[in-house]
């Protein structure tokens, strides 16, 4: 059970170096920065940096310029730095040049196809076309049907070049002598041409000149703007610029080495030295348990000082899933499919399915079920376990009660285990009243455990060396815990030295606690019965497969097809339901007893998170 140990790292730098510190931090994958606001207090007299980001404004201006000439700017590597004045001068210059191009576009929005057509016209030279004294040019898109009609025109006073075509349009360039220009335009208009003005200036040429520097400046602004966004993590204490955050203890040295060559100081400390900061939680589990971190994250991360419940979740989830979905063949498919998907798609849910498939196989083997065929494993069972037919016949009427009782028994064990975890965690948190007197503490454990013993004694008196029904024992193990549940709050006050009197007064307290205790007792009953579903799904799975097998027999030659489809259907439907039900047991019956998901996620430093 592992929550990665953290170190609190504080980097001290001078005014000229803190930007480099930020740049290097961004390149380091494992650093969780703390916002400056968490670090400033009256004692250190620190202040936050002004995070006015002028580079963001430059970025927008450059983007607008690019957009106006249809050039998409993309940030690349930064080759050199620019002064603010230099950037402003450049933006002004480019703006003037490109405004001219934008004017010639005459505010027409060109589609991708228009651009392709225009590209072909470009080879003739836009300026040259406009300089012609006796010839006029025009271009546009003609509906495909109108293009066919060009050949119908008798007096053709123009020449046409097909530039490009799509399903609906043909893009054309036409040329005519100035004498006929009016008539030709009328003709084109009659054929529903959608004119595209031929630009007076070749913007692309100008663009070509500026493209490189534009991208360079844009990249620099983008990079600097990103760094500026990280200013919120920097505290300035006079000339000392501080950046504090958490790094995994294992990589702390690596983090320190990150600043080699800079004149900075890095202090490493235990997280406890800064009580005002909540250390982030980073889970680290072995390969077998790792995908189950997903379920824990979905509920809420554990507190840094708590326990990582992932291994417990992994084991209990697989166990319950395996029992409910016990089938050697189907489990094998889940195992193979899940692990393959996990490998290819890096999907955590697939990883969970794969692992659950393994336990499904184990229980499938014990139940003697392979793809719904209940007799296939009988010889193996007979030779291994020396039974007459098979180890456990799920569909046998006599098996139903043991199955359901067994399910509740598993539930009881799990409930007791979660109580133990809760007691441990509360002792660790120094919440003694919670550890001793609560329903999930020692009192609850004794109460619930004794009831289980009592039930065992009732139905199987020979199993126990004593009589759990004796009055002194009942008073000690049932009566005392109930009184403790009732008195939890005053006892808590007493232990903390706040006196025995509850804060709401005795009258209200008694009234509230009577109902509270009743609810506690009821919840023990309902929580235990909740596990009945484990047995229920064993029956339901076997029942559904029985239907499939009956259908296989009924359908004769189509049997194999029904067999495959039926198995797939049951796997899909029941796999989903069982998965959901198991998750429900994890969250409602187990997590609610010991887990507080109030941890803070370990978030890498980056401008997006800033």
């Amino acid at each position, binding site marked *: 059970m592992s929550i990665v140990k953290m170190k609190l790292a504080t980097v001290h730098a001078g005014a000229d170096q803190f930007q480099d510190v930020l740049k290097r931090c961004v390149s380091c994958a494992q650093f969780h920065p703390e916002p400056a606001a968490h670090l400033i207090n009256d004692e250190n007299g620190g202040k936050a940096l002004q995070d006015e980001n002028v580079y963001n404004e430059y970025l927008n201006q450059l983007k607008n310029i690019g957009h106006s000439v249809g050039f998409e700017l993309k940030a690349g590597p930064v080759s050199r730095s620019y002064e603010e004045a230099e950037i402003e001068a450049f933006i002004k210059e480019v703006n003037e040049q490109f405004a001219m191009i934008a004017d010639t576009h005459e505010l027409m929005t060109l589609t991708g196809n228009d651009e392709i057509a225009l590209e072909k016209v470009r080879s003739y030279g836009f300026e040259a076309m406009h300089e012609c004294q006796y010839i006029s040019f025009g271009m546009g*898109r003609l*509906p495909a*049907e109108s293009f066919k*009609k060009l050949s119908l025109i*008798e007096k053709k006073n123009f020449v046409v070049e097909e530039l490009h075509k799509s399903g*609906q349009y043909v893009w054309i360039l036409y040329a005519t002598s100035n004498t006929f220009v009016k008539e030709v335009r009328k003709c084109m208009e009659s054929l529903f*041409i*959608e004119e595209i003005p031929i630009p007076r200036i070749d913007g692309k040429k100008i663009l070509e000149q500026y493209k490189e520097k534009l991208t360079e400046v844009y990249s620099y602004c983008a990079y600097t703007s990103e760094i500026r966004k990280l200013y919120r993590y920097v505290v300035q204490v006079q000339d000392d610029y501080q950046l504090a955050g958490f790094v995994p203890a294992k990589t702390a040295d690596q983090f320190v080495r990150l600043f080699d060559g800079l004149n900075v100081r890095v202090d490493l400390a235990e997280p406890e030295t800064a009580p005002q900061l909540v250390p982030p939680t980073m889970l680290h589990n072995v390969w077998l348990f790792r995908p189950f971190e997903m379920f824990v994250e979905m509920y809420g991360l554990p507190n840094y000082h708590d326990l990582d419940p992932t291994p417990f979740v992994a084991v209990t989830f697989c166990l319950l899933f395996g029992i409910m979905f016990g089938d050697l063949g189907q489990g094998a498919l889940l195992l193979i499919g899940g692990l393959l998907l996990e490998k290819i798609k890096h999907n955590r849910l697939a990883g969970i399915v794969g692992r659950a498939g393994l336990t499904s196989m184990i229980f499938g083997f014990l139940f003697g079920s392979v793809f719904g065929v209940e007799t296939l494993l009988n010889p193996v069972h007979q030779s291994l376990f020396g039974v007459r037919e098979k180890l456990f016949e799920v569909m046998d009427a006599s098996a139903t009660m043991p199955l359901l009782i067994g399910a509740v028994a598993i539930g009881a064990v799990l409930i007791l285990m979660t109580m133990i975890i809760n007691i441990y965690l509360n002792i660790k948190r120094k919440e003694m009243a919670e550890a001793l007197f609560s329903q999930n503490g020692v009192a609850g454990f004794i109460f619930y455990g004794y009831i289980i013993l009592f039930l065992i004694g009732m139905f199987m008196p020979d199993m126990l060396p004593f009589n759990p029904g004796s009055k002194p024992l009942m008073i000690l193990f049932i009566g005392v815990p109930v009184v403790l549940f009732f008195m939890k709050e005053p006892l808590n006050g007493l232990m903390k030295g706040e006196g025995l009197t509850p804060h709401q007064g005795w009258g209200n307290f008694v009234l509230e606690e009577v109902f509270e205790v009743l609810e506690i007792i009821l919840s023990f009953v309902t929580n235990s019965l909740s596990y009945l579903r484990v047995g229920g799904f064993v029956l339901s799975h076997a029942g559904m497969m029985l239907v499939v097998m009956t259908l296989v027999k009924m359908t004769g030659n189509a049997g194999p097809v029904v067999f495959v489809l039926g198995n797939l259907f049951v796997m899909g439907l029941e796999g989903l339901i069982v998965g959901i039900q198991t998750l429900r047991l994890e969250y409602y019956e187990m997590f609610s007893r010991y887990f507080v998901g109030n941890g803070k996620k370990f978030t890498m430093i980056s401008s997006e998170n800033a």
Partner: protein
Amino acid sequence: MGTASNAAMATKAKAMFGKRLTASDYQQLLQKKSIPEIASYLKNETLFREALEGYSETGLHRGQLEMLIRRDLGTRLSRLLRYASTSGDKFYRYGIMMSEVEQIMACIRAFNDEDNYKMIGELPLYIEKSTSFDIRALAQVRDFNALLEVLDKTPYADLIRPFSVTDMEEFDYTACESVLQKYFYDQVMKIVDQEFSGKVKKEIREIFLTQIELDNITRIYRSKRYFNATPAQIKKVINPVYLRIPKRELEDMIDHCNAEEFMERLARSAYHNYLDSSNFAYIEYHAQSINYNLNKRHMMFSTNPDIVLIAYLVLSETEIQNVVDIIEGVRYGIPADKINRLLIY
């Protein structure tokens, strides 16, 4: 038996009619300030989505937009005919015939113009495989003899030959159009008689006879109002069909009424339910409006697939005309309320 006896077609046609432009669509369209805005609305919000697929809304030419919308009706018709029990229906070719007549008239009207670019632009080449003559050849026709040559071997040639003149100034457009239309309706009636029988035949005949009668009314009104034509001239250009207004009454109206009196008499005729003289726009509006309402009733209540299909075509044509009116209205900056008065829905 009808040519399309499959009830599936009637159901489909009714379903398609359900997707027609609604009053709210028309109100939205009337708020538009430009052709691209109209095109965009039609493309994104209405049944014309498919027709305008792939066309740019921003640059779409008005004429092209109108043509695409008109062509869409042909697509819808062929889609409906797929549901019909018989294919290659002779009867539904009447739409092609109507286009042929329109193209011949457009060609003649262009003789007097400097060029025939407009006619070529609007030439429906998409039906060229179904027409009885080469409509592509109309593009080269610039005089009457050339037209006769193109129409050679079609009945149209004999129909228009008597109108041949040396000077196009003297050409009688109204009479020529009336002859062609009469021929068109005769042919339609002939096919109806051959293809249908019983009650269906009676109802389909009635649909077309109503159209003819309404055409006549329009023609009479226009001749009186704009051309001061004499009763004899008028009688010459009308199609002798009398459905809701008896022959004697119509002739009396031709002989003794001026345009205003004609409208008043009409308002007292069998068409009185459909006329609202307080909202007088123009005569075509009334004729179309009457036709629309009659066919809407067929659409709602008839279960015969052929009748439903014909009604669907008439209703869709009116819808297209509405859209065209809006396009033209917006283009010429006519106020929305004025355009609205022309719409029939």
